[in-house]
């Protein structure tokens, strides 16, 4: 029943959002698209990072595979980005499997996994920067859309892009709800909470983590394909740069790890903040202003709100006694439980 309710909530929320193009100006609609794109990427990251507890600092790698791949196929063979979504879903999944094999095989978790993913993504910067077919340092530019062409995922107005990413984001949210309710979702959470105990209880922790990274990587590449059609441009740093990978996980962490809505809420709050900062006089003077803001937000979140916004809302609701007896949401781990104790000053809003 709870699952059905979650599906309905998701469809209602996205259904309401579908009216946004009617009321938003072009500029704000563009921000709404960015919110949905980053939400999509953060939800994909959350499968491995939030539910599985393996924080990848290199999801830009998978995003870049989708972005570069789609741009290259459009430019050389005029292959539709829709098809690229399928192709690079598979390619990034295979690369994800390689990364997972490389790291999980030796039980490299936590810090090691983070280091390996960040190093691989940085390596991708130098590979693409030296790859002439991919435009080397200049990257690849797609022609600007002159007419609406749904088959080639080209639109002259923001509205077209908005509906595409809205549907993609809805699908990934529904998929996460489904996944979290399946046996696989519970296995994944058990790996996060206590890998040894999970293994002892017969959970194949290796295969669970492998599937999680494959799914996370494959879906991230789909977001990357949309990224490149939206901006018509990709270069090494714009996808493989540290800032991108950090942004992806920032939205998930600030929103609430291992929850369906956390990454969406995080993106919905933080992406507009970045745009406001960028538009401010400080942001005009120096480009890194929004990253500075994000750095501050990340530090403050870890210090005072380690469960993110959704985690905080849940614990407040529970303390007000309106919490139901439903299973603790997947995001409630030891650290979250600790933060819910009243004497922890970290929960004070």
């Amino acid at each position, binding site marked *: 029943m709870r699952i059905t309710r979650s599906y309905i909530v998701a469809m209602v929320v996205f259904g309401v959002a579908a009216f946004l193009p009617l009321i938003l100006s072009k500029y704000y609609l563009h921000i709404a698209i960015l919110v949905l794109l980053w939400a999509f990427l953060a939800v994909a990251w959350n499968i491995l990072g939030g539910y599985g507890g393996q924080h990848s600092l290199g999801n830009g790698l998978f995003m870049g595979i989708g972005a570069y791949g789609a741009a290259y196929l459009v430019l050389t063979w005029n292959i539709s980005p829709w098809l690229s979504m399928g192709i690079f879903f598979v390619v990034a999944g295979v690369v994800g499997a390689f990364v997972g094999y490389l790291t999980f095989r030796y039980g490299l978790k936590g810090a090691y996994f983070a280091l390996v993913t960040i190093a691989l993504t940085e*390596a991708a910067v130098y590979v693409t920067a030296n790859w002439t077919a991919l435009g080397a340092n200049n990257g690849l530019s797609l022609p600007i859309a002159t007419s609406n062409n749904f088959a080639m995922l080209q639109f002259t107005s923001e509205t077209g892009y908005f509906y595409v990413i809205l549907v993609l984001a809805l699908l990934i949210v529904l998929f996460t709800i489904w996944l979290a309710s399946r046996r696989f979702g519970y296995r994944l959470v058990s790996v996060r909470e206590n890998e040894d105990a999970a293994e002892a209880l017969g959970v194949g922790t290796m295969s669970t983590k492998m599937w999680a990274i494959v799914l996370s990587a494959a879906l991230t590449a789909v977001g990357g394909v949309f990224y490149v059609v939206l901006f018509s441009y990709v270069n090494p740093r714009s996808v493989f740069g540290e800032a991108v990978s950090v942004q992806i996980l920032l939205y998930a962490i600030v929103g609430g790890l291992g929850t369906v809505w956390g990454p969406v809420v995080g993106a919905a709050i933080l992406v507009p903040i970045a745009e406001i900062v960028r538009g401010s006089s400080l942001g005009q003077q120096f*480009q890194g202003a929004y990253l500075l803001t994000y750095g501050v937000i990340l530090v403050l979140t870890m210090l005072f709100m380690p469960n993110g916004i959704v985690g905080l809302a849940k614990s407040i609701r529970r303390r007000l006694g309106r919490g139901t007896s439903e299973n603790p949401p997947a995001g409630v781990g030891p650290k979250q439980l600790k933060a819910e104790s009243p004497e922890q000053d970290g929960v004070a809003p």
Partner: protein
Amino acid sequence: MTFSRDVILQAIASGVMVGAIFALISVGLTLIWGVMKIINFAQGEFLMIGLYLTYFLVTRANINPYVSMLITTPALFIIGIAIFRITIRPILKDAPMNQIMLTLGLSLMLQNLALMFFKADVLRIQTPGQTVFLHFGPVVLSLPEVIAFFGSIIATLALYFYLQRTDMGRSVRAASQSPTAATLMGIDVRFTYLFAFGVGSATLGVASALLLPTYYTSPTVGLFLGLIMFVVVVLGGMGNFLGAFIGGMIIGLTENLGAAILPGSLSRVLTFGVFILVLLFKPQGVLSRRRS
């Protein structure tokens, strides 16, 4: 492009020189990990602070870069413990990933603060030694390179013996092996953590004074050098001093040999390639081994 013997010899010599400094910049990270199991993602940015500090001491106050060490080292010690005290200590008992994320946030902040104050310019210093070259057969090395090599080795060894032979060093190692047992032996673990974090960041003060005459500083310098630190530390085994030294040498040699035979910035790819190969075939290099 010639692959002559001399070019290779030169690359090996330069690689060894820079390898020592890679080792020095990495020991702080490996020390902090060894003691409190925190990866400080802002370590590269701490080094950036040291490099800027050195730059301004040299250019504005006209201090010899190697003498500036006497100021940058204590300065980074204080910056390190201040940052530790304010941000990391309150969440020492939280999940390890939370600590990583916090230091990642710090790195993002420091990087962009530097961008705000110092702009994206790449800054270098002029020192008299830069024009002095030492000839060893076919190999030519600049004086700052050689000083950086010996300075790094001396600094790394000094830290090693400090940890091995002094009471403070012993309490640091005791706290890293078992915080509980260390507490029972009367060691103030909280203070020891603070101290170790300070030392881990002070090593970067020494390193920046040695590094700047042969290198540069910019807001993103910590990004690349930070990655070098991670690779070195993972290669050598996290928390392992000797490992950091070997890792530094491997990366120094790879970078320089790569630059000698590969065009453009492809040598960087080679560096990460070596990293992946080691992960694939020599995983024991990446498995954490406690210092004995």
